[in-house]
């Protein structure tokens, strides 16, 4: 029983709150104000707690202090953000293409799947972060060690989801197309692939999260630049506010990238 759960669900989309457009503005408004209120309350409580208990900023800096420090060295912050974003996006795109290509190959040549999939499953049954130190030894502390691991993780998520999607095709529809004399390739491209799109996109959505997390976590092991590296460096140098800045930046960047992938997915799989 390979561990597919973390691939299966897809994190955010459609869980408890479904922010699909189409409701009237009143409904949307009623979905928007509570989280905004919560954010305001939390920020206020945060500032108040720091002020009331006189917490030093190595225990808990205020949101304002974090913003101020973030603005002090925007170049450094941008550089780190850029490093993390490029690593994860390059790995993400390459891994998605690889996963999709492998899925199509496996569906076409079943024997290949029996040969290669076990290796893939075995490699991925170990949490990917455990390979981090090995990747650093083999490939150095540059971007390539992060990208390779991201490619492996992402391609696996996409492969497993795409395989499930390609397989879940209605056999009746296949028989119908075949009776019209459609070739296997036509069936794959016209029937299976469109049918698999929702599953593929749910794989892509999970994978983008994997990519960001891996980039940040692996940078903590050693890197030349990046948000994870910035977190590590700051904690080692006891500049705690900077650690908060880097953590905050990685959260914001991930949300932006995730929303973009989610948006593309919705446009592409409109049905």
């Amino acid at each position, binding site marked *: *029983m390979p561990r597919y759960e973390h*691939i299966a669900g897809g994190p955010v989309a459609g869980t408890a709150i479904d922010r699909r457009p189409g409701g009237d503005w009143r409904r949307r408004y009623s979905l928007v104000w509570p989280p905004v209120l919560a954010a305001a309350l939390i920020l206020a409580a945060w500032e108040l707690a720091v002020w009331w208990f006189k917490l030093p900023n190595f225990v808990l800096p205020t949101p304002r202090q974090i913003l101020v420090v973030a603005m002090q060295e925007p170049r450094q912050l941008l550089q780190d953000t850029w490093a993390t974003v490029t690593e994860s996006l390059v790995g993400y795109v390459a891994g998605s293409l690889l996963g999709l290509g492998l899925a199509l190959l496996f569906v076409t040549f079943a024997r290949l799947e029996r040969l290669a999939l076990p290796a893939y499953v*075995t490699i991925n049954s*170990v949490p990917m972060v455990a390979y981090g130190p090995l990747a650093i030894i083999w490939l150095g502390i540059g971007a390539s060690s992060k990208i390779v691991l991201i490619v492996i993780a992402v391609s696996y998520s996409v492969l497993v989801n795409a395989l499930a999607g390609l397989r879940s095709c209605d056999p009746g529809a296949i028989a119908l197309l075949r009776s019209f004399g459609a070739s296997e390739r036509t069936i794959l491209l016209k029937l299976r692939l469109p049918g698999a799109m929702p599953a593929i996109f749910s*794989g892509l959505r999970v994978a983008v*999260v994997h990519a960001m997390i891996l980039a940040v976590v692996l940078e903590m092991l050693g890197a030349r630049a990046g948000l994870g590296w910035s977190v590590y460096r700051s904690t080692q140098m006891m500049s705690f506010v900077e650690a908060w800045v880097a953590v905050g930046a990685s*959260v914001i960047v991930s949300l932006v990238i995730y929303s973009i992938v989610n948006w593309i997915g919705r446009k592409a799989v409109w049905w």
Partner: protein
Amino acid sequence: MATTPPATGAVPGAAPSTGWNAATLLVALGAVMLTWELAVRLLGVSPDKLPAPSAVLATIWTGRVALAGAVGTTLYEAVLGLLAGITFGTLSGIAFSRFRLLERMVLPYFVASQAVPIIAFGAIIIMWFGNGVASKAMIAFYLSFFPVAVNTLGGIRRVSEEEIGLLRTFGAGTLTLLWKLQLPTALPSIFTAIRLGAGLALVGAIVGEWFGSSRGLGVVLLTAMFDNQVEQLWAGILLTGLTGTALFALVVFLQKKIAWWHAEV
């Protein structure tokens, strides 16, 4: 990789069913090991680059006492955090289901937390809770907490009005309703989150150990990296995989025992 997120199988067709079971996986594992061993021996790969599985197993056997201690420490941290995450996650899920406003205020953040590297907060947790077991358990806790809370709510929401109405006519109170109807309905999706959380908790413990610790699998991996000991590193990787698989198998076992009526594994 188990770092990683997500919750409910809300997307239809997303759950891949390849029909693999433990036996096929073991055979696959054996085949991979054999190929690896043969490749290393026949191609004469330097052990500094890629040691043969036999060499890795020998390394594990030589250092078995220390390695067992490392596995124990990491497992302890992860399980401690996971148990806390399950408890508080389920309780928050129940709270969300009762207080609509609370759900609307907080749940969006819970859901969003699964799309971002909240594991990076681990660095701050270590600053707060120090280098001991508590800080790693804390990281494992919050990583597993969010998916459990989200899935508990999702599961409770799956109960239909008719079912509630039926029990109400029999005079069931709120607590009976929760205990006899809502929680049992939610159990399968709670377990889905726990399976996910088990992997996250392990990763959380290991990454937490990177930030500062003297014991555990994360320390084994990190020291092996600094000392350039590839065999030791592979031993750590292998043990991490085994620990994760064992933890996962335990959760699946419990699911079959506890939620036997809905054991889709």
